[in-house]
Each structure stands twice: as C-alpha cells, then as structure tokens.
C-alpha cells in the first residue's frame, strides 16, 4: 500500500467517524424531559446533576415558597445582555451623539447665522397658533425638557455629574430626579397624544413639500421655500419625532413607570432599551427643532409665544398658508 492510498483511506475513515458522531450526539442529549433525564442520571451516575443545572439555565420558573414575581426563576440570563447593551452601545454612542449633534448645531449657527426676513416687517399680524395649541405645545415642551434633563442624569449622571458633585450630593439629587421623571412622564404622554390629535391634519403630505425637499428647505442657500402651514422639515419632526418616537418613549416609559401589572424582568429590560434609544434620538431631533424655533429663525419664537406672526414672516416662510389665510380659507390643507 502506497502512502497516498493510506492517507485517502484514513481520510475516508475520519469522515465516516465524524458523521457517525454527529448523528449520535444530539440524539442522546435531548430526547427525555429534563426531570426524567435527572432522575435517570441519578441512577446511573449518583451526584452528577448536569441535567438539573442545564434546566436551571433555561429561564424557567421552578417551585419556591417565595411569593414574589419570578421568584421561582433561579437564574435569569437576560440581565447580562441588557447590562451590556445599556452600559455599552446605548451609553457610548448615545452620549457621543448628544454631544456631537449639539456641537454641529452650534457650529452651523456660528457659520450661517439665523434665517432672517428678506423684506421689512409690515406690522400687520396674523394668528398662527390659537391658545389651545400653544397650551398643548408648551405643556409637551416643558414636560419634555424636565424629562430630558432627569433622563440624561439617570443614564449619564454617573459619568458626568458624580465626578463633579460627588456621590452623596448626586444620590440625594437623583432621589428627587427619579420621582420627578416618574410623575411628569404620564403628563408628557397625555400631552403628546393631544399634540398628535391637533396637528395631524396640517402635517399630511402636500405636493409643495417636494419642492422643499429639492431645495433642502433653503437651509443652506438662505432662500425662502414656499410651504403650507407646516413645511416638510416641521412635518418630519412631527411624524418621526413627536408621533413615532414620542409614542415609543411614552409607551415604554409607562411600562417602566407602572411595574404593578406583573411585568417580568425581560419586559422591563426591553422597555428600558427602547425607552433609552427612542428618547436619545428624539432629543437629537428636538435639538434641531428647538434651534429653529428660537435662535435659528428670526420671528419663529414669537409665533409660539404670542400666537401671532407678522405678515412678512408668514409670506416668506409659509407662502401657501399665508395665501389661504388671506383668501379667507382655514389655512389647513385643502381637499
């Protein structure tokens, strides 16, 4: 027999042996129920509790006299994944995004400055936001800011505030912070839903929005692009920021805030991750919204403060809406 013949024979035998092993191994492990496996193992190998320990790692509830929720689960495995997701990606990427987006907006303001009116003000005012809309806006905005500050402290305070003010001061402050967050939260949920109801109609797609997208809102050119009552930028903030993210934050927040409905730890872990991610992305978009509503666009803040805007501002920023109002129409999307 030559060497190459021997090698090929050996190879064939090895493959055959591997195949036999692959067939026989899984069959042994998983046929009987775990309790029976342990009972049988007890007979053949007293003291070998491998089947029992395997069962412990299945996140199942076993018998216990302790009446607590999930007390029968000896070891839960989801906590470790949650810990690494929360302390890892969410904290690291979330933290840097908050800093970078805030810095990018500050840089934009320094380079481009605010959007101003091209023509002089007329002195004639038209109503943009009636009282009920302003109340709902400021209720949502106020609760959002309180929740953002306390929420950021819950996630990043450990890394940012403790080195500054120390453990005990931060601890006492956060007892207050956590309770403020938990009691203000439901109010934000209610006012967010109210906001979606009052502004959904004016945020539906209009053909004029395509022009706004083509010109990127005139953000870089300084040009004023015609739009309806809300331009496409505002509509994006409304549907993605307020509606999708706002509702995600509100629902996950309510799950975390009211643990008295028998939520498991897995429910809370999932809700916590959804809450943190949605809240951070919403905050990044809110940075843009707050910038445009205050220092970014001259005259925008007055519209939400007094409810009235100058006719020049209305014509330059929301031409279609201005024309509708001037024509005696409602100013809502027609048809």
């Amino acid at each position: 027999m030559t060497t190459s013949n021997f090698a090929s024979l050996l190879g064939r035998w090895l493959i055959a042996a591997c195949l036999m092993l692959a067939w026989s191994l899984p069959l042994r492990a998983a046929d009987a129920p775990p309790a029976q496996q342990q009972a049988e193992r007890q007979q053949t190998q007293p003291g070998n509790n491998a089947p029992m320990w395997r069962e412990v790692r299945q996140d199942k509830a076993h018998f216990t006299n302790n009446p607590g929720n999930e007390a029968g689960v000896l070891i839960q495995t989801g906590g470790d994944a949650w810990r690494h997701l929360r302390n890892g990606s969410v904290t690291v990427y979330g933290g840097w995004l908050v800093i970078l987006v805030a810095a990018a907006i500050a840089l934009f303001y320094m380079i481009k400055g605010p959007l101003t009116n091209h023509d002089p003000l007329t002195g004639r005012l038209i109503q943009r936001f009636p009282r009920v809309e302003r109340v709902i806006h400021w209720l949502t905005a106020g609760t959002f800011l309180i929740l953002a500050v306390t929420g950021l402290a819950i996630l990043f305070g450990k890394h940012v505030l403790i080195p500054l003010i120390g453990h005990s001061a931060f601890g006492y402050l956060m007892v207050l912070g956590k309770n403020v967050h938990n009691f203000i939260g439901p109010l934000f949920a209610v006012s967010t839903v109210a906001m979606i109801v009052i502004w959904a109609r004016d945020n539906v797609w209009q053909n004029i929005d395509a022009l706004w997208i083509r010109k990127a809102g005139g953000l870089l050119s300084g040009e004023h692009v015609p739009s309806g009552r809300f331009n496409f930028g505002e509509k994006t903030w409304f549907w993605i920021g307020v509606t999708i993210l706002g509702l995600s934050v509100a629902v996950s927040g309510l799950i975390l805030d009211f643990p008295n409905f028998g939520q498991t730890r897995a429910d809370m872990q999932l809700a916590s991750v959804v809450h943190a991610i949605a809240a951070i992305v919403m905050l990044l978009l809110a940075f843009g919204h707050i910038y445009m509503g205050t220092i970014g666009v001259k005259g925008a803040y007055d519209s939400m403060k007094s409810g009235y805007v100058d006719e020049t501002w209305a014509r330059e920023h929301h031409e279609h809406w201005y024309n509708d109002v001037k024509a005696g129409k409602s100013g809502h999307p027609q048809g």
Partner: protein
Amino acid sequence: MARMKFLCDAERCIECNGCVTACKNEHELPWGVNRRRVVTINDGVPGEKSISVSCMHCADAPCMAVCPTDCFYKTEEGVVLHNKDACIGCGYCFFACPFGAPQFPGGNSAFGLRGKMDKCTFCAGGPEENGSKAELEKYGRNRLAEGKLPACAEMCATKALLAGDAPVISDIFRDRALRRGKAGDAAWGWTTAYGKPEQAAAVKEENK
C-alpha cells in the same frame, strides 16, 4: 485577603427554608422583603434538587455596573454592599441581577415607588459605622464585624449552605464530593468522559 462566597450543596439542601427564616429574623426584615429564598427544581420528581439563593456577591457584579447613582461598593472581603442614602429605587439592579437578589419594600408600586433597595449583605451591614444603630436599622446586623459568619449558613441544619472564604468552603465541598456515594469517581462524572453509563452500572454490579 479573604474572598467571601456562598456555596449551596444541592445534594444536601432539604428545602426546610431555615436559612430564609434565620435571615429574616436576624435582620428584622419588613414584610415582602426576602433576602434569601429556596428554589426546588423538578419538585416532586425523583432526583429533585433544592438550592438556597440570595445575593452571590459577584466578582463582576451586574447591579454595580447598571446602578445610575453608583451606590454599590465592594468590601475588602469581596462582599457587595450598597449605600441606601444614594439608592433611588429605580429597580435597575433587579433587572440586571441573574439571581433576583435585590428586594424592594415598596414592591412593584405605581410610579415606580419601590423604596430603597434591600439585599443580602453577607451579614456585613453597610457604609455606616460597624454595629451602629443606623447600620442596624438600614442594613440589619453586622455579624462579620463581630467575627461571625452569615446567619443563614450558620443556621443550616444539613450544612448544605456554606458561607465563608472561597478557598475554605470549596475545599469542604470538594472533600464531600470525593467521599459521597459508593464510587467517588462517579460523583465527578468520569464515566461520562471515559465510558458509557451502562458500563459504569455493570462495573457496579460486579463490585457487589
């Protein structure tokens, strides 16, 4: 320096809940707070096993890692303790802990009003002065400072629950495992590695 550990011998635990009672009594814990519990796997089936579990004082403790106020600390003996003054009752330690150790006097209340977290201290109290009234009221008795081991393990009737320096209690357990049953090697599962279970049984028959 000692490295404090709990070890529960599943072959010895008879689910008497003596450790649970000893702990609750020693620290005068409020209603609803159980720092220790006994879980029985395959209850009522031949081969059922009971295990007493509480805070396991992890080397890399998940509760410590996720706490928003960083209220946990580790003693020189490797015991994981926490400062209740800094605890905000957010429940994150409970979400992260594999063993369900953190307890809340307020339970799962609306608006997350759980109260200050409470958990096994390995009978080592808290940040207050050893043996002080403040420490007793917040964290229970500090037996370690008195040179005593945790009450649960000292109370255990079958000595299933061991508490103490890791090398010492693992030596005790290893010694037990070697002497347990007819064939010491069976306890370590050598038959799984070097032969089929049927062969082991056959060898036993021959030895009778």
